[in-house]
């Protein structure tokens, strides 16, 4: 303990001047005969508890020497390390101290209610022998069965109870039914809404809307198929059609082929992205779109254009990564072998444990071992084969930055190159401008009225803050002198306002920039503006900016990339491009693991691991693993079945024979 067994700052060990907390600890040790030189494990538990939880009222003589050499002697009880930290956590005004203490804290089920959240009195009320917490802890399909039993002929309720419960049960049954219909039967009612994926939350809201039975409403939906296995897509489409049949207009922004085929009317916008988009390319029934000569959507829909299935699957480098005994969440003590040097796809219906296995268990464990990250990995015995890797990178959909000062150009390092270029211009040389002059984050070149933000926040007291363009720079973020420096006819603010595509033209003579810009375009982001503030990027866009940055790094050939649904928000043409980019990573010897529902991506994988069979408690097992060809032969694999159907729709492709 004297060597710092207790990791918290002040309890760490003797300091030169002693330290108040440490002297207290020594006093307690003296009073209760605890040997501070012994390893902690050899200190008897009850004595260790005295240190950790305090003496509980028993007083200890403390002899305290200050740094100045003054001495005090007093007698008081010792509050204990843990109560001390908890008290200081509650009372401190300093965020720093709070963060430091929070490192030693973990969120644990409440000792009184064991996570049930209710008073014991409320838990003691039962219907059919179950209390309300038990009912909400079941997956929705089971809760529905229970409600059906209560309202059915086998009901355990008495005559009077039935009369009271009848209408309530009907409501519950209808709402649970809507949730089942949108493919969420694996969720539990007590699942915290904050932990739902975007797609799940959207489908819950959809289910709620269906329940409202309104008509004459215009519903606008953004990609409801995200995160949905093709098997559940049917049910979602039926729900959307149900909304329509009630007499509503349902307007869906969607890339999913099934959805487009089901639509009554399709609007195809394009032809390109950003400045090249914004026109109506085609409109009409799905049939009309397919026959349209120039519609990209129609071309993919009709099969005129298609993403090819690789004629050969990679054999990989023969090395394997093996996760042994994965038990986190619903995983059933899985042992999973992942081939390295391949493009690996994890599939399975929503809630089958894909993300748990790949992110919670695999990524977190590898990040802790390879990258020194301070994360707790999901429960598993061990992982073998880590020695074949030297890096692990999770390219997820979390935002690249929360401040408007971050943008794709700064994130990918492109802006550094641009600023260097601007500083090299003759005009800058004359004026003595250095690269820092062209940053909107530091003093010098930025507009000081808005400190480079381009807009001013006006606090409206009880109304939400409003943002107005800065009236000095008019949103340009730089001061007048800086803006006078131009490359070709563009000043630095114009550059930030350019799309990636435009920038490719403008900076075509600079290989370093072209390299970064091309990668952005390759991942389908040709349309974003270089200076687009990070918080306004969608999850899919943020993910692809990260992908572009990773691609621009020198590949070690021993890196493992983990991507969760990279196809989100991508049109078939963009998916096509994305696949090529991912294949490039694998060609360089790296391993790419994607969690995906998109059949076009699944079919191009070298190796598939299909989890299931269902979501939630009924999932967490391996259904099939192997090449796409092997998966298609597995009768009880939903993914295999849909893959077979998908490839039959686009005939003449190797792999279907």
């Amino acid at each position, binding site marked *: 303990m004297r060597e*710092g*067994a207790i*990791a918290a700052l002040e309890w760490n060990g003797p300091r030169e001047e002693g330290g108040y907390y440490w002297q207290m600890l020594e006093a307690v040790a003296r009073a209760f005969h605890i040997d501070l030189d012994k390893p*902690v494990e050899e200190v008897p538990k009850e004595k260790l508890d005295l240190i*950790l939880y305090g003496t509980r009222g028993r007083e200890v003589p403390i002899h305290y020497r200050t740094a100045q050499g003054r001495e005090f002697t007093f007698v008081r009880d010792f509050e204990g390390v843990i109560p001390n930290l908890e008290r200081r956590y509650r009372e401190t005004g300093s965020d720093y101290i709070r963060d430091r203490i929070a490192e*030693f*804290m*973990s*969120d644990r089920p*409440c000792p*009184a*209610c064991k996570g049930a959240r*209710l*008073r*014991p*009195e*409320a838990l*003691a009320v*039962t*219907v059919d022998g179950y209390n*309300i917490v038990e009912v*909400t802890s079941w997956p929705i399909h089971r809760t529905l069965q229970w409600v059906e039993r209560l309202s059915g002929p086998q009901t355990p309720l008495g005559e009077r109870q039935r009369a009271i*419960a009848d209408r*309530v049960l009907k409501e*519950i049954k209808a*709402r649970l039914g809507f*949730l089942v219909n949108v493919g969420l039967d694996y969720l539990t*009612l*007590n*699942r915290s*809404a904050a932990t739902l994926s*975007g797609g799940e939350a959207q489908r*819950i809201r959809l289910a709620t809307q269906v329940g409202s039975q309104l008509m*004459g409403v*215009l*519903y*606008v*939906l*953004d*990609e*409801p198929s995200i995160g949905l296995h093709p098997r559940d897509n049917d049910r979602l489409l039926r729900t959307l059609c149900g909304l*329509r049949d009630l007499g*509503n*207009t*349902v*307007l*869906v*922004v969607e890339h999913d082929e099934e959805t487009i085929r089901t639509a009554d*009317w399709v*609007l195809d*916008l*394009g*032809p390109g992205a950003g400045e090249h988009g*914004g026109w109506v390319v085609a409109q009409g029934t799905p049939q009309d779109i397919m026959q349209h000569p120039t519609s*990209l959507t129609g071309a993919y829909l009709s099969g005129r254009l298609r993403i090819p299935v690789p004629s050969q699957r990679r054999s990989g480098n023969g090395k394997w990564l093996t996760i042994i005994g994965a038990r986190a969440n619903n995983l059933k003590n899985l042992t999973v072998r992942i081939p390295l040097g391949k493009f690996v796809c994890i599939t399975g219906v929503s809630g089958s444990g894909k993300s748990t296995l790949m992110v919670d268990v695999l990524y977190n464990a590898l990040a802790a071992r390879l990258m020194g990250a301070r994360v707790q990995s999901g429960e598993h015995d061990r992982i073998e084969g880590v020695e074949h890797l030297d890096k692990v990178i999770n390219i997820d959909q979390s935002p690249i930055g929360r401040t408007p000062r971050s943008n794709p150009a700064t994130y990918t390092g492109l802006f550094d190159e641009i600023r260097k270029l601007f500083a090299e211009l003759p005009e800058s040389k004359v004026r003595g401008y250095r690269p820092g002059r062209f940053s909107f984050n530091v003093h010098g070149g930025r507009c000081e009225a808005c400190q480079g933000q381009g807009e001013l926040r006006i606090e409206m007291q009880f*109304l939400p803050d409003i943002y107005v363009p800065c009236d000095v720079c008019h949103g340009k973020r730089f001061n007048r002198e800086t803006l006078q420096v131009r490359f070709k006819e563009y000043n630095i603010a114009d550059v930030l306002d350019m799309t990636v595509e435009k920038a490719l033209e403008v900076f075509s003579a600079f290989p370093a920039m072209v390299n970064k810009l091309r990668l952005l375009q390759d991942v389908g*982001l040709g*349309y974003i503006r270089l200076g687009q503030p990070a918080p306004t990027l969608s999850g899919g866009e943020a993910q692809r900016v990260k992908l572009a940055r990773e691609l621009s790094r020198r590949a070690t050939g021993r890196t493992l990339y983990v991507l969760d649904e990279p196809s989100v928000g*991508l049109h078939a043409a*963009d998916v096509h491009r994305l696949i090529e980019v991912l294949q490039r990573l694998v060609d360089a010897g790296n391993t790419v693991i994607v969690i995906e529902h998109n059949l076009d991506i699944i079919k191009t994988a070298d190796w598939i691991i299909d989890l299931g069979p269902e979501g939630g408690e009924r999932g967490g097992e391996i259904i099939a693993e192997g090449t796409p060809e092997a998966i298609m032969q597995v009768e009880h694999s939903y993914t295999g079945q849909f893959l077979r159907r998908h490839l039959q729709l686009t005939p003449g492709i190797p792999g279907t024979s």
Partner: protein
Amino acid sequence: MASNVIRVVGARVHNLKNITVEIPRDKLVVITGLSGSGKSSLAFDTIFAEGQRRYVESLSAYARQFIGQMEKPDVDAIEGLSPAVSIDQKSTSHNPRSTVGTVTEIYDYLRLLFARVGVPHCPICGREVRRQSAEEIVNALEQLPEGTRLILLAPLVRGRKGTYQAVFEEIRKAGFTRTRVDGTIYSLDEEIQLDRYKQHTIEAVVDRLVLRRSEDEEERKAARTRLTDSVETALKFGEGYLTVQVLGDETQAARDLYFSEHLACPEHGVSLPEIEPRTFSFNTPHGACPECQGLGSKLEIDPQRLIPRSIRSA
């Protein structure tokens, strides 16, 4: 306005090129296109934004000031627009109190169900708890076999430490002559010495009687009146609680029956609150676990982290 299309004329939001489209009403319409081709600009930033703006315009100026100003999308006209509801993916709740049950409102209905048809139990012993009137108690007692000998007791102290001389004085003053202490009946004439540091249960003996089913109408009525009177007295003196000791014979051991006028466990005296839907809400103090305020988890110092294993035997 009898048309069955939503007509968007001259939309120029973001990169839209002054486009005019007709969207059939009451149909499933998909907008597709490359990423960044303007799908969301048309669906959300034009059509939905205008639908929402018009709705907000219909509110009073007073209400509008709380919503904030909505910018008019850059579009010449939109005809045939209905009230619009957007179901996007961003507006998820990050409140730790929101659950799937609460956002779908299913939990509200479940609370109602449990409040109205749920069966309350004692949180300590798990026994079903029921509220009984004196009349119901009398009816229940009359179901016991003929010749059963009963002692009606009014519970005053339940498993608490102390000597309780004042309680005995109170019983005496109320006119009772016997008391049951920890299962043994004493006359109040005796000096009763209790161990101050042990837990005691004290009841006043209100009546002792034998159940008889008389043939005679009058006698039966009189017996019933006596039983009812005694039950009422005991309930009054025991503040709503009643214990009945059924004396044993050769075939059966003695046992206690517990009754209460309150929604409470008569044995443990745990009084349950009135069962209302809010009892099951972890977001009100009426239902939330008082320890964690209904969050289900607590942030605490974890000794595992405080003393990391790597240096545990340092």
